[in-house]
């Protein structure tokens, strides 16, 4: 009971002050039938810190950390080196154990950080305004579609074939309930992103928005500029989705290419893999006039009563705690601490570091693609990519991934797992390469694939 400061003597004193005979008596409003008369069955009793740590460490030891073996898993979650100072800063109690900054006089630390974060994200995305974060990339993607519907008063979203299938599934789930129409299709195993077909589809319909992942799930780089022009001509909004922010140190920003709303997953910077969460949804708009339709919290600059600069949460009339059923979203808690981790990592990198990090990722990915292409039975699909590309093999890549995992090599993410209903994709394997990948790792993957495919 090390987390409970009250002593039995305290409890007795306090009960006397209240005028209650026992703590149980304070639960007198609970009907007898619903009250448990002892410790709940099925849970262990309390345990020491040492015993709990031992138990949890044993569970952790049953997992294979990506950093302990050659690892090429990506598909929306990327392993990058996180500088030690990032974790130190997010563990400072003043950040870790603070609440949402509703009391700005005693929350300027969090608020100034959020203002800086919003600016970093807006610049990275080539946008005017970013919000203070969403849950993750997939939910941010749905929120963007929902927002485009409010702006255009249309309800058809056309999804490019390269959108992460979990994002598609999340969007389809929400749309089923809101009555929005979603046009989506599985990718073809081709270096061509299908831009021409997408533009035809845009021209033949009246969509609210077009959603394009950049780089896409196969690692390809769709021609956002051409898609943006067609989308604009159709009176719709272009939503660009980015799941690898490091890429934007090497390729042009979605905003610069004409995307109206840019959303994405920020996990790659500062946050860590964490088996899928918590992650960091990023959300930005290119045109400031769309700010009032944005979901989520926004931090803005103002002054205090003595004229000193300060920051507050603002435009909250969009939000659930003020607008209730008329809010732009039901989101409340977002990903504050992950936003801090992202922002600290980005500050450590700076412009120079981000360009260098992106260049190193791309260099190693090119090297890996070339070596994999020389493995008999392996073909590299992409002619363009950043740090992730797709290879194809004969047969089902799922089996190869499982077999290589037994040999302590995480070969990548199979398209068969991502698109289980699409048999024509089963030979695809998405391979991610970051600055944490060594040439030895790449050679180990090549050798293991060679053996598995022989």
């Amino acid at each position, binding site marked *: 009971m090390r987390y409970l400061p009250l002593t039995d003597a305290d409890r007795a004193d306090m009960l006397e002050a209240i005028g209650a005979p026992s703590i149980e008596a304070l*639960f007198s409003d609970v009907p007898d039938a619903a009250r448990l008369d002892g410790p709940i069955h099925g849970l262990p009793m309390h345990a020491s810190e040492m015993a709990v740590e031992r138990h949890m460490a044993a569970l952790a030891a049953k997992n294979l950390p990506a950093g302990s073996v050659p690892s090429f898993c990506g598909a929306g979650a990327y392993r990058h080196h996180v500088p030690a100072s990032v974790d130190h800063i997010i563990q400072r109690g003043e950040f870790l154990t603070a609440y949402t900054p509703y009391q700005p006089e005693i929350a300027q630390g969090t608020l100034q950080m959020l203002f800086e974060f919003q600016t*970093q994200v807006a610049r990275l995305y080539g946008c005017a305004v970013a919000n203070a974060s969403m849950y993750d990339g997939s939910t941010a993607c749905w929120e963007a579609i929902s927002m485009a519907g409010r702006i255009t008063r249309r309800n058809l979203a056309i999804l490019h074939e390269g959108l992460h299938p979990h994002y598609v599934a999340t969007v389809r789930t929400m749309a089923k309930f809101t009555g929005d129409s979603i046009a989506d299709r599985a990718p073809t195993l081709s270096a061509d992103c299908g831009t021409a077909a997408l533009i035809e589809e845009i021209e033949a319909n009246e969509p609210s928005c077009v959603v394009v992942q950049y780089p896409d799930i196969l690692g390809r780089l769709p021609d956002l500029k051409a898609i943006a022009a067609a989308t604009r001509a159709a009176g719709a909004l272009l939503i660009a989705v980015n799941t690898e922010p490091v890429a934007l140190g090497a390729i042009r920003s979605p905003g610069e290419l004409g995307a109206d709303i840019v959303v994405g997953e920020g996990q790659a910077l500062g946050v860590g893999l964490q088996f899928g969460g918590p992650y960091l949804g990023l959300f930005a708009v290119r045109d400031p006039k769309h700010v009032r339709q944005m979901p989520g919290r926004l931090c803005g600059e103002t002054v205090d009563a003595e004229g000193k600069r300060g920051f507050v949460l603002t435009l909250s009339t969009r939000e659930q705690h003020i607008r209730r059923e008329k809010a732009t979203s039901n989101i409340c808690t977002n990903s504050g601490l992950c936003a801090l981790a992202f922002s600290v990592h980005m500050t450590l990198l700076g412009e120079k570091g981000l360009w260098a990090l992106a260049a190193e990722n791309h260099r190693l990915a090119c090297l890996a693609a070339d070596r994999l292409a020389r493995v008999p039975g392996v073909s590299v699909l992409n002619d363009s990519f950043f740090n992730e590309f797709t290879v194809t093999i004969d047969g089902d890549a799922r089996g190869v991934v*499982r077999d290589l995992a037994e040999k302590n090599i995480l070969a990548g993410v199979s398209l068969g797992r991502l698109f289980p209903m699409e048999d024509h994709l089963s030979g695809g394997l998405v391979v991610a390469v970051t600055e944490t990948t060594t040439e030895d790792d790449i050679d180990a993957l090549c050798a293991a694939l060679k053996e598995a495919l022989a």
Partner: protein
Amino acid sequence: MNAPNKSGWKPESPAGDRPRDDAATTTTGNRALMLEEALIFEIGTNDTTGVDLPEPDANAANRLGGMERVEAINLPGLSEPETVRHYTRLSRQNYAIDLGLFPLGSCTMKHNPRLNEKVARLPGFIDLHPMAPSSVTQGALEVIYQLGEWLKTLTGMAAVSMSPKAGAHGELCGILAIRAALEARGNARRVVLCPESAHGTNPATAAFAGYEVEDIPATPEGRVDLEALKKRLGPDIAAVMITNPNTCGLFERQFREIADAVHDAGGLVYCDGANFNAIVGRVRPGDLGVDAMHINLHKTFSTPHGGGGPGSGPVVFSETLAPFAPLPFVEKHGDRFELVEEENAGEHHASTFGRMTAFHGQMGMFTRALTYILSHGADGLAQVSGDAVLNANYILRACEDVLFAPYADSGPCMHEALFGDRDFAEGLSTLDLAKGLIDEGFHPMTMYFPLVVHGAMLVEPTETESKAALDQFITALRSLAERANGGDMTLKDAPVYAPLRRLDETQAARKPVLAWNDPNLT
């Protein structure tokens, strides 16, 4: 502040008598340990970096398909020492649980054990890829499964979905399952009923899921009016969303009767589990007729709030809703744990309403919550809710003579005590008292919520405060209440000792400046 000042020392003059302008000025603008800090955009440059990376080869061929970046992004960098100092200085302008009592009603700010942080950072958890094959993620799947099983045990419910990302996301998960179940019966129905005292997320969630929202009437004692509710029930009511204990800090005595009436009318019952920490280990919501309830792991199971997230909002379901729960989830087969997702859900989970998010939920929060549950155990969790309720009642009874407590006669409060501004002198408001608490070294309580009480002040001390800390808080709250009742207008100046005075929120909203150097929006 778990070591309150026992010597009885007090500031010589009350807050407000000594505006900061009178204090000595310094050339730097700093005041000893209060250090000013500029924005990274004012101190960093594009050429500074705090990491060592290979210099890019400008002549290297690329395969970026003609998309290579040419323009600068303009992201200022700082060296590592400057970075650490920047954020450390910022951190010191934050109030936090580690500093003192944080009585934010309904938000549950309790101590965050550091063992949980340590465990969450074990390489097997923090460095595990979500799409790694299940053969090498058995420990992670076991964490998800075990936590889910214990959430079912603690709530007495049949099924659990672990993937929702936060409380509001969990609400959405629950309401979507309700909608899917009603659609399977042939009619999704039209209206969701929420009490006026509900969290704002409740009506926002119902609207998001395509429902109209109507109020549930309340009794003068602060609980749902069962008879009025019964009159409103009918074939158009899809569900009721009720928080229990409710946001007035009271247990809904007739919850079972409410649930039975809703079920008899063909509707379903959503319980907002934001206040589950008041009853954990003592009452199982499943015994009260709940069909779906989210659990904020960051409230009941003490994962850190992190200045606004990340949260985690697993949802427990009744037998009725279990078939509609979203993907993915974890099943146990013999000694092995299996992740059920689109690939293998097929026949045995054909009614699932879909997927809430990429991957499998807030794993980093699951490890912390499981660690917390193991630490407390069944006996400790009952003591957690007991002490939380004891502490709230102690504050309620210690302050009700100076601070209007509208439901003081409605029975013991649960984990939070609700006050109103009825007795304040003309011209003074809840906001003024709350800002006065800042000067006394406390975070303000939740203000102006719930909406059913004028100038509401919702105080939730939690179980992790010592009696000495509570006594100090009570002394401060009583003194502020007496000043507000007595018309002490110096409260209008509060806070005077915080890093900033009151901020101009009107200007922030009228001319939003949402990014550095961004032209003001019009």
